[in-house]
Structures are given as structure tokens and as C-alpha cells.
């Protein structure tokens, strides 16, 4: 009787224990917000601060040196030149500009890492949320090295905010197509607060604060994204359709029928010194 009772108790206890441990792991998974799906930028235009018009009206807190660089680039663009936008020759936007999400964005949340993929120029971020510290040495990339922390602000057992810090960028990078420049020293630090809208679970906010030596103070903007109910994933291949050809320090155009063309009036042709002269 005692034996039966003990064994039944043991079985019941084991069942209860396994139930208790298993849901703990499952509950851990359920603590994360649902960020699945395809996110498209909510702002029609792609200037860095979506709340202000483009160009000088962005009122970027640039140092006098970088304000002059920006003004010179705008003048160059108005004159018909390509300007300093690295995307022209298929370089990625890097951080923080990639969060403009020129093409749809996907967010994949796992306990250890949150992945952000934007199809435009194949941009891809790993945000480590496994509690690691900054590595002793970071090999710089356009998208940088990101460490994040999930926060349960309401104390209800569910995370509702992802705080991220990103460092270790390389350049050249700008903040938008007008050539709003980041400092050439690439010491940019980007802090983000990523969260779903409290009233609309299909609206995502990213509050982005950029600290950079081209700025007189940190600059905060908020970008929003809408979840697409029926996503079709594109494959954006810059090099497939790009008709800008860099040769040396010059850019040329490729015509529709495959001939090299000048990109601006009176542009000299490329130096062909390495070819055998035709007879």
C-alpha cells in the first residue's frame, strides 16, 4: 500500500515536475513580441527624419565642417552629378540608414539573437541578446555590431521593448540619398528602441538616436513600419540593373545597348593605356 502510494506519488510528482519545467521553457519563448512577417516603411519619402522635409530642412545638428560638406553635396546633386550617395555604386546603406527600409524588412526573433534583414542591397543585422559584452576587437562592417536587451516594462512577464546599441561601422555611409554625411572616422554609435505600437500590433516603431562626430549633439528620429498582411518577398539586386560604372575615381553610365557613356557634360573617357592601340 505504502509502496503503491509512493510510486503513484512519484509518478504524479514527476509528471508535475516535467510540466513545470517544460512550460517554463515554453513560456520563455512566449515572452517575446510577435514581430513575424514583412514590414514596409510607413513613410512615403526616405529622408532620414521623416517628420521634416528633405535637404537642409532636415535641420541636422551638423558641425560647421559637415554642414559645408552637406551643402556642397546638395549643390553637386542640383548640378546633375551623382553626389556622395554610396548606394549609387551598390554599396549598402549600413547603420543607421538601412533602417529606412527602402525595401521590405523581416525581423526574426530568437532568444539569443534578433535578425533584421532588409532586401535593399542585401542588408542584414544580427542583434545579439544573449547577454554578451562588447568583443575586444570588432571587424568593422557597414551594418556594425549590435548588442540588444529585451525589456519587460509592464512587469507582466512579456518583453515589449528591444533596446539596441550598435558600434563598429565602416564607411562610407550617409543618412539619406541627399548625402547627409556621417563622419569619416566611422565612430558612429547608434542606440535604438524597437517596439510594437501599443494600440496597433501591425505597426512597429524604431526610435533611433545617432551619436556621431559630424554632429554637435545626438540626433533622434523615429521611423515606423507597417506589417504586410500578404507578403511577397522581392530579391533586390543592385548590380543586376545598375547602369553606373565606376572606373578609377570616375563614374560613367552604361547605355541600354551596352556602350559606355559620360555621366556628365564633357566628361573625358576612361584612360585606356593598358590596351594595345588599334592599327
Amino acid at each position, binding site marked *: 500500500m505504502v509502496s503503491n502510494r509512493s510510486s503513484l506519488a512519484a509518478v504524479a510528482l514527476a509528471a508535475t515536475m516535467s510540466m513545470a519545467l517544460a512550460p517554463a521553457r515554453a513560456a520563455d519563448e512566449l515572452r517575446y513580441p510577435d514581430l513575424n512577417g514583412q514590414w514596409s516603411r510607413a513613410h512615403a519619402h526616405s529622408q532620414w527624419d521623416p517628420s521634416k522635409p528633405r535637404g537642409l530642412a532636415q535641420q541636422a545638428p551638423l558641425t560647421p565642417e559637415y554642414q559645408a560638406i552637406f551643402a556642397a553635396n546638395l549643390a553637386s546633386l542640383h548640378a546633375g552629378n551623382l553626389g556622395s550617395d554610396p548606394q549609387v555604386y551598390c554599396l549598402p546603406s549600413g547603420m543607421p540608414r538601412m533602417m529606412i527600409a527602402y525595401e521590405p524588412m523581416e525581423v526574426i526573433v530568437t532568444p539569443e539573437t534578433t535578425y533584421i534583414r532588409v532586401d535593399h542591397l542585401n542588408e542584414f543585422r544580427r542583434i545579439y541578446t544573449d547577454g554578451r559584452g562588447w568583443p575586444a576587437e570588432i571587424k568593422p562592417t557597414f551594418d556594425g555590431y549590435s548588442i540588444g536587451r529585451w525589456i519587460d516594462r509592464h512587469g507582466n512577464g512579456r518583453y515589449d521593448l528591444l533596446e539596441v546599441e550598435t558600434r563598429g561601422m565602416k564607411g562610407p555611409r550617409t543618412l539619406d540619398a541627399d548625402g547627409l554625411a556621417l563622419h569619416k572616422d566611422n565612430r558612429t554609435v547608434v542606440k535604438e528602441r524597437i517596439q510594437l505600437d501599443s494600440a496597433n500590433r501591425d505597426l512597429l516603431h524604431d526610435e533611433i538616436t545617432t551619436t556621431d562626430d559630424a554632429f554637435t549633439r545626438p540626433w533622434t528620429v523615429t521611423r515606423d513600419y507597417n506589417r504586410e498582411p500578404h507578403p511577397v518577398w522581392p530579391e533586390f539586386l543592385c548590380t543586376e540593373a545598375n547602369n553606373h*560604372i565606376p572606373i578609377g575615381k570616375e563614374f560613367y553610365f552604361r547605355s541600354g545597348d551596352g556602350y559606355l557613356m559620360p555621366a556628365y557634360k564633357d566628361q573625358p573617357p576612361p584612360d585606356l593605356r593598358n590596351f594595345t592601340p588599334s592599327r
Partner: protein
Amino acid sequence: MRYPSLIVLIALAAASAMPPPAARALDDLSKYPDLKGQWQRIGPNRWESRENKAPLTPEYRAVYQDNLDRMEAGGVGDMASWYCLPQGMPMMMSLYDPMEVVVTPQVTYVLISHVNDSYRRIYTDGRDWPAEGEYERTFAGYSIGRWLDENGDGRYNVLEVETRDFKGPRVYDGTGLPLHHDNQTIVKERIHLDKSDPNILYDDLTVIDNALTRPWSITKKAGRVPNPKPMWQTAVCAENNSMVRIGKDAYYMSQEGYLMPLKKDQPPPDLRFFKPSPK
């Protein structure tokens, strides 16, 4: 008898009180193999071997031989990734750079940063093939997968995948071993861990293609890097690519930024759109 009954009742009550989503999440997560970490290729990246030649049709054997002849003469051959286009399927599974596999119940993501970031979504949510307008043809194709529990032990051990809806040009490897230009390729895969070594991953690939006389099977092998926090690189093809394509011809860019011929006596590009330089 009352005590065991009470304990059993408590256990059953505890079990039934578990919220269904948690139970579902637990079931989902515990059934999948651990594919975390960084995977690197083991073995050659070429597809043909002495024992396993591609069963090319006579037409495509001639296409291949023509490509080999052009490469022998100094050309770059038919590998589109020279011009920063993605390798696509199935070439990307040769893992020219490390791979990450992210398993979620709905989608398994295959992430490889080579040329640019290559990205596969293998849908395991039970969906059927999309109708026209619900997908775009891509180099990586559209993949539908199914997890199998072949040992009947309650855990998945094989991911069966079928991939269709490609675009091109695509080849198998750097020798330019061709796939048919109609892009009707179908790739079937069985992805699984080694039974005795969970740090070895196999991808058994079978390619069905109109350039082949029969389906062609090959196994690719990868090893898990021991470092649990591996460094991930970001390949940006446009950053350092020294190949320039103008019209149908390829040229080389010297370190000094001068256009150079790729092969002996290659004529320079046609400069008809430039003003003649004053004599």
C-alpha cells in the same frame, strides 16, 4: 487510496491548467534538431568528381565545353557572381562562406554571406506552392520544407525541401557547369545531422533540370565551428570587385583604377559617346 488519487488529481489538474499556447510552443521547440552555430564547408566546392559526372545533355555538354575553352583563353566564363550577382540555388549550398541556419516552426532560414548576403526561406508551415503573383522568381528560388521524424522518437531529424521558381543565369560552380537557361530547375534536398556526430551536417541534393538527362544527386557536407560566438563576416561584392562589365565584354580594373584587358589582344570598349580628345 485517497492520497494517490488526490496526488494524481492534483497532477492532472496542473497538467490541464497549462495554457495551450505554451504547450504548443514547447512541442514546437523541443522537436527540432539543434542546427545553431556557424557551419563551414567540408570538401570541394566543385560539383563534378571523377566518380560523379553531371549527366548533361549533349547540347549543354557543348555549352560547358565552350565555357571551359573561353576560360582557358583567359575569359572569366559564365559565372554570374563575377559581376556580383548571387550564386543562387543550388550553387550557394557549396558554402563558399560560412552558413547560419535559424530554425523556427514556420520557416527555416539559411543565411550565407558570400558575394552579398544570400538568404533562403524554407517554409515549413504547411503551405502549398504559391499562385502567380504571390511570389517573385529569385536566384535562391521558393522553398517548401517538411520536417520528418524518421526514427519515430518524437524528434525531427530530417528536413526535406523542394525548391522551384528560379531566375538565372545560374551555374553549379566556378567552372561554369551550366543549368538550363529556361530556369525550370527543381532542387530536392534532405538536410540532416550526422547520426554519430551532431557537429556534421549533410545536405543531400538532387537536381532536376532540362540541361540534364536524368536527376543528378550529390551530397554536400559542413562542419560546425566550435566557437559558440563565432565572428560573422559581411560580404559586399561591389566594394572590392575588380571585374567591370561593359556591354557583353568583361574587363579588369587595375589597382590604380585603370581599365585593363582580360585576355590577350582584347579590344578596348567602344567610346562612341565621348567627345574626341583635342589633338
